[in-house]
Every structure is written in C-alpha cells, then in structure tokens.
C-alpha cells in the first residue's frame, strides 16, 4: 500500500510542474473559442498546432529550425570556448588577469545587442553577423563564471593537493577544475539563455532564413498563428536546453548534495 502511495505521489510530483502551462493553454483555447479574444490578434492553440503541422509538412519549419540551431551551436561553441579559455587563464595566472580583466570588464558592460548596427555594417546580414553576436553574447557569462569558479576553489584543498605532492596538471584536473564546475554550470545556463535571445533578435532584424526570419515574414503576411508558433518553439527550445544542462549537472555534480535530487 505504501508503494502505491509513493507511486501515486511520484506521478503527481512529475505532473505538478505542467499544471500551470496546461491550465494557461486550456484557458487560452476557451477564450479564443468563445470569441472573448479576437483570433486576429491571438490565434487559438488549435490554430497554432495546425500552423505547426502545416509548416512541418512543407519542411519550412524544419529547415528554419535547423539553420537556427546551427547558428546557435556554432556561435555558442566559438564564444563559449573563448570565454572558458580566458576564464581559466585569468583564474590561474595573475599576469593574464592583470593584462585582460580590466578590458573585459569594460567591454562586458556594453549591451552586446547594441552592436547590431555596427555588425551589419561589418558583415552585412550574412551568417558571420549572427555568429559574431551569439559568440559575444555567450562569452561573458561563461568567462565571468569560470573565473569566479576558479577563484572560489577552497584554498585549503589546494594546499592539501600541494602538500600531497600533486603536479600542477594533476592539481588543476583533480582539485581546481572540479571545484570550479558548479560555477561554470551556472555560466552555462545563463549563456544558453542569452544564446537564444541574441539569435532571435539577430534573425528578426537581419536574416533570410531561420526561426526569427520565419516569424518576421509571417508578421508581414499577418499570419499571427505562425508568429505564435515561433514563440512556442522558443519556449520549447529553452526547456530542452535547460533539461540538457540539468542532466549534465546531475552526472558531473553528483558528489554535491545540492545537485543530487534535481
């Protein structure tokens, strides 16, 4: 009996986070169907699903989704790896930090989206422009959190590693990097959010393909259901990125009681 009870509460526990989204969609459908909200401004969920079905049948949705994903991934890899490398360098070497940290902190305070006009002048509306913006956007959260993570590694553990004869490489791999990992994951989460944000804005302003372009084109033809479809897809993509990060955290931070039960 107790097993049934735990099974029941387990299912309930899994469903709880979805109660609010389902309620919102149900209310939205009801409001649209009863004519409370004009479908010219807000299409019913069923219309959005139909638009999604239509777009995926023609392949338009998939090709746009794929191109956006590629841009996001490549931009993220470029910006993220530079940020990670500089974060490590500045966390480990005082010389490197003195040399670059002040500059980076200055540049960090420029909203990277304000560079859009400049970027269009430099790169036109080609792929480089989007990759550049995404790379700049993800660079700073990864950089700042990697640096912070390395700084906050317990000095007592570092001393222990030295006293126990660890080489600098071993010390880094066994003490410093694992100690910085929780903070690096925080940076990763922020960076993923900024990655989508930047890409969508860039695609909305200047692109000839991609999800943002699909939404903007739909707006010109007053296809409000496609606009909403694009927004729903952003939400789903965000959720997928978040779930992936959690999975990574759960396997890499299993030692940490704070992450054990996510």
């Amino acid at each position: 009996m107790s097993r049934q009870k735990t099974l029941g509460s387990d299912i309930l526990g899994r469903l709880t986070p979805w109660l609010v989204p389902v309620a919102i969609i149900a209310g939205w459908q009801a409001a649209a169907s009863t004519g409370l909200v004009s479908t010219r401004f807000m299409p019913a969920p069923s219309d959005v699903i139909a638009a999604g079905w239509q777009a995926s049948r023609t392949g338009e949705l998939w090709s746009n989704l794929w191109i956006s994903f590629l841009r996001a991934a490549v931009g993220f890899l470029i910006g993220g790896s530079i940020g990670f490398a500089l974060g490590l360098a500045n966390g480990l070497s005082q010389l490197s930090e003195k040399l670059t940290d002040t500059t980076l902190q200055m540049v960090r305070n420029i909203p990277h989206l304000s560079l859009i006009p400049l970027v269009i002048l430099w790169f036109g509306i080609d792929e480089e422009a989007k990759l550049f913006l995404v790379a700049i956007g993800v660079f700073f959260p990864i950089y700042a959190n990697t640096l912070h993570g390395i700084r906050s590694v317990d000095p007592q553990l570092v001393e222990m590693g030295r006293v126990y004869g660890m080489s600098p490489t071993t010390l880094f791999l066994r003490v410093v990097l694992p100690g910085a990992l929780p903070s690096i994951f925080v940076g990763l989460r922020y960076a993923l959010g900024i990655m989508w944000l930047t890409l969508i804005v860039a695609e909305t302003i200047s692109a000839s393909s991609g999800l943002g372009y699909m939404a903007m084109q739909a707006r010109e033809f007053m296809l409000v259901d496609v606009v909403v479809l694009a927004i729903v897809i952003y939400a789903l993509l965000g959720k997928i990125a978040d779930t992936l990060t959690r999975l990574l955290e759960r396997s890499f931070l299993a030692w940490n009681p704070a992450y054990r039960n996510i």
Partner: protein
Amino acid sequence: MTTSTLLRAPDAALAPPREVPVASQARQTVRPAPATGTGVAVTLRGLAKSFDGHQVIEGLDLHIPAGQFVAIVGRSGCGKSTLLRLILGLDQPSAGRIDLENQGARSATRRIMFQEPRLLPWARVVDNVAVGLGGAGRRQERRERAAAVLAEVGLTDKASNWPATLSGGQRQRVALARALVSRPGLLALDEPLGALDALTRIDMQDMIERIWRNQGFTAILVTHDVAEAAAMADRILVVEEGRVALDLTVDVPRPRRRGDPELARLEGRILDHLLKDRAPA
C-alpha cells in the same frame, strides 16, 4: 557501531618489516610491541623562523628519535604549528637546519593530517585515500592499497561513498587513511581531532595510537588538549614563545587507561606551567 568493532588485526601485507627496534630499545619494558625502525628521526639545530620581522621560532634545538610519538602543546600563537610546517618542509626556516634520517626506514615520506579533513568532495572515499599515494602505481593497484588502508581505519563499507555522506569522525578517518596510505616515515598531526565530539575523539586517539604502534612511524601531534597529549604521546614538548619550555617523557605503559593518576599528575604539571603567568583569580 563503535570503531573498535570494525577494527581488524592488521593485514599481513601491511605489517612493517621487522627490524631491530631503534627508537624503542630504551623503552622495551614500556611497550611490548614497539616501533620497528620505520620512522624518520628528526634533528633540529638552531632553528629559527620569522614572519615580517616577528620572531616565531627562536634558536630551537631538538632531537626526535625515529618512531617516537611526540606531542607539542602550547598556547595559541606559540609557534607550534609553524614548527610543524617547518619539519614538514612546507615552510623554509629563516636560520638553522632540519636533518631527517631514516636508518633502514621504508620511506622518508612525510605526511600531514590537518585540523579539517580536507577531502575532495568530488572524489569517492577510496579515491580520496588514493590521493595520498601521489602519482604512483596503476589505477587498480592504487585502489587496492587505498582499500587496504580503509580497512585499517574501519571504513571498508564506505569506500565508494561521497565524502558528503560521512560523519565528521568518519571524514577524519578517511583523512587519516589518506595520510597513511603511502606508509610515511613521519606523520604530522595538526590538531586533527579538535573538531570532533568527545567520544569520537577518544575512538580516534585509540585508532591513531594503535596504527602508530603497528607501523612505527614517527608521530608529531600538535594539540591544545593536554589530556590528549598525555594519553597518546611518549614525550610532551611545551612550546612557549618559539622555544621548548618543557620537555617531558611520559613513562606510562600502553595501553593507557584514561584517568590514570600518573597521567593526571602530568597533565596538572603541564597546565600549571601553561597557566603560571595567569593572574590569580
């Protein structure tokens, strides 16, 4: 579950090679199963250390025979931790020299057990112990050696746990295992039991004493607790203002009974000395 129920007879492979006991000849009547010449003898000559012009250790001469268990007591800031760091080679002396000799000893390795366990939270217990081996050996061999020492401290069943799941006493036992896994010739203990509750502390004292008697390393214990020093050590050094103010031999046979009147007398003497310049209440 007490620690003693988990303790086993030392593994044959772990028993130190039998050699002529060097350090214990004089005390054969005191200890039936004495140290076996695997410890490092430490000699300090005119040792001095100052930080920013402030003299912490002044012209210290001291000889610690191989295999001796020495306790260093003193008030906070008397220089006892600095002395320990100098002997371990973690700091360089401003003047004087430190000689270590290990006649026929297994290893000149010096290890320290800190006040905090300082375990890597992201490494399982057995891997934390293997940290003490340095880079030596293959993975499998390292794990086997680590597991053997874990058995000695009674934590075999915790080998694959994360440190976060252990109690404070268990963590400190893992730290002890990590310090011992490389079979050091000298073990420095920097107030390792200070943060434990009274009963866990007594268990740990007994465990450290038992392992020391089996392995015969030289042990240097820094502590605030005069009773702990008296219960564990062969010799107690009272350090004051960077000098050895009192050097006492503890001639009480082992295993020692807690509350032994002779130990109590000794404790009283040390405390009187430490508190002598206190204003009368």
